């Protein structure tokens, strides 16, 4: 994030959108001494009218402050901010201490320095405050610390917002100061290399977890393990666990056909040979492995939640996709990950421990699954083509979407029409507390019905655990 954190408590109430950016300071007059001149003149006038010179003298105090306020210029913007984030990688809900130091690098006294650190929007401050107010003599530094609770995502700290005022407070200067590394650490240039090493990290709990950074905090939760996702009978040539409709080697009886030379002796129906003398071969349902792509709806509408403090639909989708991914790999299927949204993300279907680690890293920290809604514009056709082009021909699709609007329905039907069996896992972001919310819930129900009638399987995932929703959906399909 290059822009400072939009903070409702800062800035000009008349123009809340106008914020300082690095290198571009904003000066504004606070007009807080408005009316002091009126007091001075009133005192003078009363003094004249009542012939009391002492009153006119009292007015001098008003003139004094008014003059001081009017002659005040903006303070020098000689402030440097250093930040140290305790660790670069953290486990979910782990506490990470952030230390911020403000220094007066100029040679004039800064009587009023207010600092608000650029805490990433998705992080929660658990202890202390990311805000500080102080006065700084030349060369002096002030340090404050706070603790953030890590959550999934790759978080970038923004520049700290610094507000400077003179003694009278008549002029306020707003600065956005990018944080530098503390002098002792001196690893500012090591930023990019640190990023590269984190790509290959498998667990995030290794030694590099203790490295301090200036503006980054990454958190990739462990992929959940749980209920296997029921798959549809679209498979690859490899053997696996998805029961197909074609006869061959397997466990579940499928059919009997006449014997062909080369059929394995174990599958010859010897009872029939004994009874009739004809050779016949028993066929079983073949069990094959599937190729599944977990496609996550990451458009802005996926960032909806039933309540302001509730996890967003995207957050739950990512959890569900992680669980599905693990269970697919465990079952021997090939699984991949794709994002359908403004930012592209593609992990080709694969298997193995390294693949799983890469998926964890992607779901945890890839910008496509950022916990904050994207700024980039979503181009529907390009995003859809990007997904369609990369999908292997025999791949099934697990689409994770809250179905908060119509495009995902359209996407699911298109993919289905192109020969990919689609299962939609829809996290329910709706609330029923107001008429409008109830209407939106009904609209979503309608979308589910549309999908079901089009032959697309839908798992409607409300408040219950994902496993419960999957079992319920599976019962519905098998009856």
């Amino acid at each position, binding site marked *: 994030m290059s822009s400072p954190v939009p903070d409702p408590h800062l800035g000009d109430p008349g123009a809340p959108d106008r914020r300082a950016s690095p290198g571009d300071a904003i000066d504004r007059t606070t007009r807080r001494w408005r009316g002091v001149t009126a007091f001075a003149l009133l005192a003078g006038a009363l003094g004249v009218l009542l012939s009391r010179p002492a009153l006119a003298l009292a007015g001098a105090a008003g003139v004094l402050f008014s*003059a001081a306020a009017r002659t005040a210029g903006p303070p020098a913007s000689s402030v440097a901010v250093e930040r140290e984030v305790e660790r670069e990688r953290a486990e979910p809900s782990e506490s990470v201490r952030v230390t911020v130091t403000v220094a007066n690098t100029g040679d004039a006294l800064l009587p009023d320095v207010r600092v608000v650190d650029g805490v990433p929007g998705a992080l929660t401050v658990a202890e202390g405050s990311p805000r500080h107010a102080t006065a700084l003599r030349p060369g002096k530094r002030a340090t404050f610390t706070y603790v953030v609770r890590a959550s999934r995502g790759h978080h970038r700290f923004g520049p700290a917002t610094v507000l400077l005022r003179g003694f009278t407070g008549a002029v306020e200067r707003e600065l956005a100061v990018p944080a530098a590394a503390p002098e002792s650490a001196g690893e500012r240039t090591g930023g990019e290399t640190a990023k590269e090493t984190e790509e290959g990290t498998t667990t995030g709990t290794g030694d590099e977890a203790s490295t301090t950074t200036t503006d980054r905090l990454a958190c990739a939760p462990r992929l959940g393990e749980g209920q296997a996702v029921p798959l549809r009978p679209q498979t690859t040539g490899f053997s696996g666990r998805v029961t197909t409709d074609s006869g061959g080697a397997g466990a579940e009886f499928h059919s009997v056909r006449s014997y062909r030379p080369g059929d394995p002796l174990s599958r010859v129906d010897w009872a029939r040979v004994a009874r009739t003398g004809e050779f016949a071969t028993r066929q079983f349902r073949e069990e094959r492995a599937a190729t599944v792509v977990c496609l996550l709806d990451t458009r802005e509408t996926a960032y*909806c939640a039933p309540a302001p403090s509730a996890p967003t639909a995207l957050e739950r989708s990512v959890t569900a996709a992680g669980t599905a991914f693990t269970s697919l790999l465990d079952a021997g299927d090939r699984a991949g990950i794709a994002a359908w949204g403004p930012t592209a993300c593609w992990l080709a279907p694969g298997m193995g421990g390294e693949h799983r680690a890469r998926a964890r890293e992607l779901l945890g920290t890839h910008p496509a699954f950022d916990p904050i809604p994207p700024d980039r514009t979503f181009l529907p056709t390009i995003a859809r083509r990007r997904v369609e082009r990369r999908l292997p021909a025999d791949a099934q699709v697990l689409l994770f979407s809250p179905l908060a609007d119509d495009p995902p329905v359209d996407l699911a039907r298109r993919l289905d029409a192109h020969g990919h069996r689609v299962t939609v896992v829809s996290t329910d972001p709706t609330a029923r507390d107001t008429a409008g919310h109830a209407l939106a819930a009904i609209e979503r129900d309608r979308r589910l019905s549309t999908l079901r009638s089009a032959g697309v399987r839908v798992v409607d995932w409300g408040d219950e655990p994902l496993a419960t929703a999957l079992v319920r959906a599976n019962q519905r399909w098998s009856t």
Partner: protein
Amino acid sequence: MSADTRRGAAGVDEAEPFDDGPGRAALAIVLVPGVVSALVLLTGGPAALAGALGLGLLAVGTHHGRRDLVGGGGLALLAGTLLAGAFGAGPAALLVAAGAGLVAWDTAEHAVGLGEQVGCRAATGRAVGVHAAGGGLLAASGGGLAYVVFRLVGGGSPVALVLLLGGAVALLSAIRS
């Protein structure tokens, strides 16, 4: 859309709700000039009432972070000064009352502004203290100068009044242009 409640991008998301009251330290600092102003006004007859009202409003406004109450308190202190002057208080007392009243209001308003922007969980005592000291220094030096001029010219003479008024108007107009 029901699901219009979006998280994130709403600024600094804190576990505890943002408390915008100034801290306890700020209140103590505000009370010093406020009490000085109110004490001086005690000598001015009915102005004592306005002084007490102003002090109370300043204290309550600072404690609860209410800008309007603080403004009312400052106004009451200044009105008390005018009242005291109308009832014949001495020049030194009036100057001290006005100066201390302005410093008290300035500090209180500053503390409330700090509370709004930085919150009460951050340490603000130092910033408020430095601000109050600066304001107090300005009031003391400027007020002292005005008093000396007033005395030198001969307190109470119409010449002093005219000189002071003329000087003030000239200063104001010079700054305005």
